[in-house]
């Protein structure tokens, strides 16, 4: 599968110069869109994603809402210019599947029972894709939900781990995803250590899988720190707090 491509050189460095356990440079910003209730932008290496959240709000199509909980809807979309070869703007099978996977990774964290009869809309726009878009989308969407003030059990942080050239690696880039031996995206609620997304593509021994899961947990915790910092920075200077009434 790995063919002739070398993903890890003799010094143990990956194609983009990272060590095996290094994350790509990660930047998250909140509150960047004004027409939505909550928003976030994530730049993880060359991956660049924008997320907007509406809600909770009453659904105009009444049959969509449920009497006992809020309905979460999610749309993951890749811009035509997000990949090297132009992507058709029509929703692809992959986009529809990822929308569902991302929604199911976020839903357990949202306290949906608090807002019956409403809907929460999450719109994810991938502007540039360089691997790990589903994980970056989950990370950013969870921050956007917090930015909208939607009550949640915990943030959700996601990180991909995998195997390339026989070595276990963290936070895969597009090359490593395509030509590596395995890709395991993981999303967790970092305060609770609950896994909300776990997928696997490729071949791994069970020992390797267990080791990777531990690496993913560590990666997610580091991403969680960045999420918290982003929320805090989005609110400007916070010191000498005052509370009134």
């Amino acid at each position: 599968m790995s063919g002739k491509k070398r993903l890890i050189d003799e010094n143990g460095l990956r194609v983009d110069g990272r060590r095996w356990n290094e994350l790509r440079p990660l930047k998250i910003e909140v509150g960047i869109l004004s027409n939505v209730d909550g928003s976030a932008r994530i730049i993880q290496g060359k991956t660049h994603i924008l997320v907007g959240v509406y809600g909770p709000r009453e659904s105009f199509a009444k049959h969509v809402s449920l009497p006992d909980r809020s309905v979460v809807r999610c749309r993951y979309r890749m811009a035509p210019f997000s990949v090297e070869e132009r992507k058709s703007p029509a929703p692809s099978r992959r986009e529809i599947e990822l929308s569902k996977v991302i929604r199911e990774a976020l839903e357990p964290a949202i306290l949906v029972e608090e807002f019956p009869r409403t809907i929460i809309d999450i719109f994810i726009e991938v502007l540039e894709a360089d691997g790990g878009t589903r994980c970056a989308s989950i990370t950013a969407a969870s921050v956007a939900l917090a930015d909208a003030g939607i009550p949640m059990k915990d943030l959700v942080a996601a990180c991909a781990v995998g195997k390339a050239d026989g070595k276990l690696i963290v936070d895969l880039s597009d090359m490593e995803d395509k030509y590596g031996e395995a890709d395991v995206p993981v999303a967790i609620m970092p305060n609770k250590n609950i896994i909300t997304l776990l997928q696997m593509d490729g071949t791994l021994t069970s020992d390797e899988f267990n080791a990777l899961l531990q690496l993913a947990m560590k990666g997610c915790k580091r991403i969680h720190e960045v999420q918290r910092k982003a929320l805090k920075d989005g609110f400007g200077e916070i010191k000498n707090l005052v509370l009134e009434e």
Partner: protein
Amino acid sequence: MGEKVRSRSIVFPGDLIAEGSFRAGAYTYTEGNKIFSSVFGLCEIKNRVVNIIPLQGFYIPRVGDNVIGVIIDNSPTSWQVDINSPYIAVLQFSDALSKPVDVAREDIRRYLKSGDVILAEVIAFDKLRSPLLSIKGKDLGKLENGTLITFSPVKVPRLIGRRGSMINMIKKELSCKIIMGRNGRIWISSTDPQIVNLVRKIISLVEEESHLPGLTDKVKSLIVKERGNIDR
């Protein structure tokens, strides 16, 4: 056991706030005897009650609240009212008019029509049914000859201030009637663009600095400065 974070510190969704004999207040959830924050906000622990004051959020109706609503539609028995909330409110004709109306004979839009702004009281709400409003009461009813400004509902307590200190100061300084809705809406009984602009500036100052001290003084000096420009 005990408090896990300092009162008045910043908390994130999922943060453990306290463990043991505490009472869970607004924007928290419990697992056993542990209390967690459910939003991004400021934590407040007073008399062993844990509350989170959210920094972002929306308005959830509460019975007894005065809200400013905008009529969006009418049905054969009621008006639908946008109250800047996840839930659309209902104002029944019987809670608005003193005598019964026959919709078949009379055009209900004579009384209230789409786009009208009202000050109303929430009289019933339980999340399973739409919030019910009433405009029968002192000072309630249609608002006319003024300007509506909408802002973040979580900033309402700050704009009111301690026992109304902030809003009373603004009213006094601007000498125009200002009506506050709990749902993040404010009605200024003035169509003077300079006054309206000044109120907008005040609100954006409050929104940006709601968590910083000395806000009332800052707002006051902003008014004094801007009023100089208006008089001239």
